[in-house]
């Protein structure tokens, strides 16, 4: 058995490596084993109506475009930052926080696809990631 040069790991080792690093950053702290199985918790600050709409219908670029967004979906692993972003929601509605739980393989899949970039606690999902997030992410509302 030789090296499978068509394997994703062979073609894009840097991306895979980066995905592991990002995953490792997300998994630091207590409960690592549990987190390694469950993945990352991300937060998106918005208004209450938009969060309810996402919970009912998933992420929608057309719905986001109505509030000046739709090209990129932003999320953060920092809950307090998400609370501030929620305060500044463009609808001027009651602030609310959407929680997105994403497994580590899903994060790596999106990175490999070129649909996710990170900078510190900030996660930037491109338009091509929205449907993936609907399928791979688990949405809930932060109480």
């Amino acid at each position, binding site marked *: 058995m030789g090296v499978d040069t068509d394997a994703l790991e062979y073609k894009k080792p840097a991306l895979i490596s980066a995905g592991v690093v990002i995953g490792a950053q997300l998994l630091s702290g207590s409960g690592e084993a549990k987190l390694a199985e469950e993945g990352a918790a991300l937060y998106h600050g918005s208004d209450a109506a938009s969060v309810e709409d996402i919970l009912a219908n998933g992420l929608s670029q057309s719905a986001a475009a*109505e*509030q000046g967004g739709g090209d990129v979906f932003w999320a953060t692993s920092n809950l*307090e930052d998400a609370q*501030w972003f929620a305060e*500044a929601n*463009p*609808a001027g509605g009651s602030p609310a926080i959407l929680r997105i739980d994403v497994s580590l393989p899903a994060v790596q899949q999106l990175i490999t696809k070129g649909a996710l970039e990170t*900078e510190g606690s*900030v996660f930037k999902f491109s338009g091509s990631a929205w449907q993936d997030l609907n399928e791979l992410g688990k949405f809930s509302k932060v109480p």
Partner: protein
Amino acid sequence: MSEKIRFPKRHADGSFCIEVSLPVSTNDPQGFLERVQDWFTQWVEANQIWIRKWEPTERIEELSYAQEFKREPQVISCNSTELKLRLDVQPSARWWKDWMVTRILADFKAAFAEIKGVGHIGDCE
């Protein structure tokens, strides 16, 4: 512009003004206000450029404070439990929320133990 966008309220030239209120705990509101204003003046001088390096692409993004804001944050009032800031935002501002949340407020909170969590954001009165 979509009628669903209600915040921020823009002036005729496209600029706008944001008021941020933060919960604080201080026995010396006037002294705290002055220290905070001095801190913001120095912070803005030291942080005119923000370089973001995205991973894993290693894409570099250079953001300018002056492109987003007209001046340093202004402390408009402070009492023993609440501090209010005013941010004057440029008409062409695109990244003002990122600056406000992940740079200005994050560094501000890290610098002053008097700040007690997340407050409120709205249009200036």
